[in-house]
């Protein structure tokens, strides 16, 4: 058998943990092509200790480790929101497609903000289009993975909860 390096193991553990907290399968997560980039982002942003602690924490707690929240949001929209920004609706609104105005007190472009934190960033262009959010809502990312002419006239379908499909 092949030798799996500890880096490979860590990455696999990260994906396994992410599957549990996002509600998507490991297959789905690998399928985004973002696993490595997200793992690296989390390590770079909060350090290996914090990532390890987050993965060991009780994922079901409402006030769980904010790093867990950052990791979930990362998979869902490809944006790294710093743990200190957890719960900030204004920051979320600022980064959403289609939003206009309302700049929150978090600066652009990598400068330090008023609260000493750096602004949210999109890990890469693909990270946006690979966001899980869009699959969760039975849609596609605005501006990518188009569903085809006229498909919007049909009722929405959700991959995971068929009982809620509307007719």
């Amino acid at each position, binding site marked *: 058998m092949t030798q799996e390096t500890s880096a490979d193991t860590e990455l696999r553990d990260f994906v396994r943990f992410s599957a549990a907290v996002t509600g998507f399968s490991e297959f789905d997560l690998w399928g985004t092509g973002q696993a490595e980039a997200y793992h690296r982002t989390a390590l770079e942003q909060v350090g290996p200790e914090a990532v390890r602690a987050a993965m060991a924490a009780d994922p079901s707690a409402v006030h769980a480790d904010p790093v867990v929240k950052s990791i979930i949001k990362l998979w869902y929209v490809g944006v790294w929101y710093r743990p200190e920004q957890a719960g900030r609706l204004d920051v979320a609104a600022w980064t959403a497609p289609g939003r206009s*105005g309302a700049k929150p007190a978090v600066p652009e472009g990598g400068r330090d903000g008023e609260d000493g934190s750096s602004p949210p960033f999109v890990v890469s262009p693909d990270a946006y289009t690979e966001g899980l959010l869009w699959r969760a809502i039975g849609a596609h990312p605005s501006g990518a993975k188009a569903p085809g002419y006229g*498909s919007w006239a049909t009722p929405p379908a959700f991959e995971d909860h068929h009982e809620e499909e509307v007719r």
Partner: protein
Amino acid sequence: MTSYDHTDPVIFPAGAATETSAAEAAQGEWDAVVVGGGMAGSIIAEQLGQAGHRVLILEAGPGKDLDLAEYESYLSRFYGAAVKDNQSPYPFNPNARMPRSTDTMPVRPDTPRDAFYLVQEDEYCTDTTFTRVLGGTSMHWEGKALRMLPEDFDLRTKYGQGLNWPLSYDDLEPYYRQAEAELGVSAEVEEQSYLGMHFPEGYVFPMHRMPPSYLDQTVARGVDGMRVSLADDDYTLRVRTFPQARNGVPNPAYDGGKGFVPVGAVSTSQVEEGERCQGNTNCVPICPVQAKYHAGKTLTKALRKGNVKIVTQAVASKVEIDEHDRRVTGITVKHYDALDSDRYETYTVKGTVYVLCAHAIENARLMLASDMQRMSRSELIGCNLMDHAYLLSWGLLPKPAGTMRGTSCTSGITDLRGGRFRGTQAGFGVDIHNDGWGWATGSPYTDLVELVDQRGLRGPELRRTLGNQISRQLLLAFMIDLLPERSNKVTVNERYKDALGNLKPVVSFKIPPYTMRGAAFARKLASDIFERLGAEDRTVYHRDRPSAVEHDGHWYNIVGGNHLAGTHIMGTDPAKSVVDHTQHSWDHDNLYLVGPGSLPSIGTSNISLTMAALAFRSAGHISRYLRAAKAPITVRG
């Protein structure tokens, strides 16, 4: 259509964006110098080029050919941008800046001077934008292509409000058809024949209408047949699709049975993309496949003619005027080296006729910076700035309705665009937004933060709740008429300059009570519609935002529509208007001001189609002007 009557695919001539240097352009003698490579400028250049005139386009934006690689760099920039506002696909360019909605704030003496382009010193600030890249604002426009109503052209006579046009619907009708062909409009005549809008016998739109979204159908089930009483009249509402400048299924009956060949993506090589909308739900800020019309499609045709040239990275900085006869003698441009450098050379380009097509704010800004107001008999340059006032209302439907699918907006309610009530309050159109609450709240990202961070949802429950919550979102955007007011205006001020030393536009814009009466009515209507749909009204207005407006004791947020107009209105009297019905300047014989700035009113239709129709009309007049100017006998009567 089995006989394939093929027109050339839209192949942009490689190198055209850079092959003409500013120095060469300044040495040349041009029949027409066109400022701005957006929708108006491209149509003018294409039409004049077609008529055999030598045309130079001056474009302030970056000098890249319109090819797929460049277009995809826009798309990639959008994907990767932390802030996805409607300018996010386009590179930051300090030398030809654009307003950004994220920069909207009242400018105070201590506001950093590089924090904004559009200067607003009032408490109320509009977050409206326009785009300064090749193709102009059409690169990010949504693509709705409504005609104005016949009654919009004589609002003053009919309802005692606003201004009359020097043109009627019937005068403009043939040009509307020309614009609908150029922009490639998808709609059905039967559905668009309302409130007096009429079409010649046998006319069909180039393509069939966009199919209404499932969300539209859901709303229609509640709204169709709803009766509204307004100023003693009864109106019956229905959900109707909008005409859209995006590719759908060609109508074989078009053009007397010849059919229509959609124009797809523009590039320097043969690509087959964008012949039909794929439902990317991203019309604003960028259609990924170019199924939506943008001016690059017209510009490409223009540049393929050989007698049309373009100089990019050339910011028109001054209109040179002969003090004696008030003719324009040249346009002085600052030609910058690169986006990240403020080095530039100054040149003056000369032509027989000059056509300013830089959009309402930039046309006015350029003329004011050139001190032309003192030569204006009306002194209305920059005045009468208009934009649609948008009031948003949002609610949660009882069942998933498929929100976030389709084009940004496929249908709406248009029955209150016109009527006698316009004597006292503004008419409006209603957009059913297929993209959910995003515009109002920042959804779906805010929903994510709410569910993950505040409610602590995880795993399958998170996934399910998100789907259920977002798919039920309904956003109604009321696009409210706003009449010309002299005090709503663009000015310039020596205190505010950009990186090249050009004066920035200073905008003062307030929402008039006539519009707010329409807004208040719209708000009530939204509540009624939500009630009929069983939707939970979730609308909240914030009085601490720059968009806050008080009316009758209530606060509303009125956001910008990016439908800027009116800064050089057309009319019949040189003392009361800036241009005549051909968009010919009253004060400068060889100057035309073409674009939405000429509109004396904007009614309740997105301005682009009307602006395009006017551009086609004016192109004929400019061509006649040039033929006369070039004629050997120059006796003037």
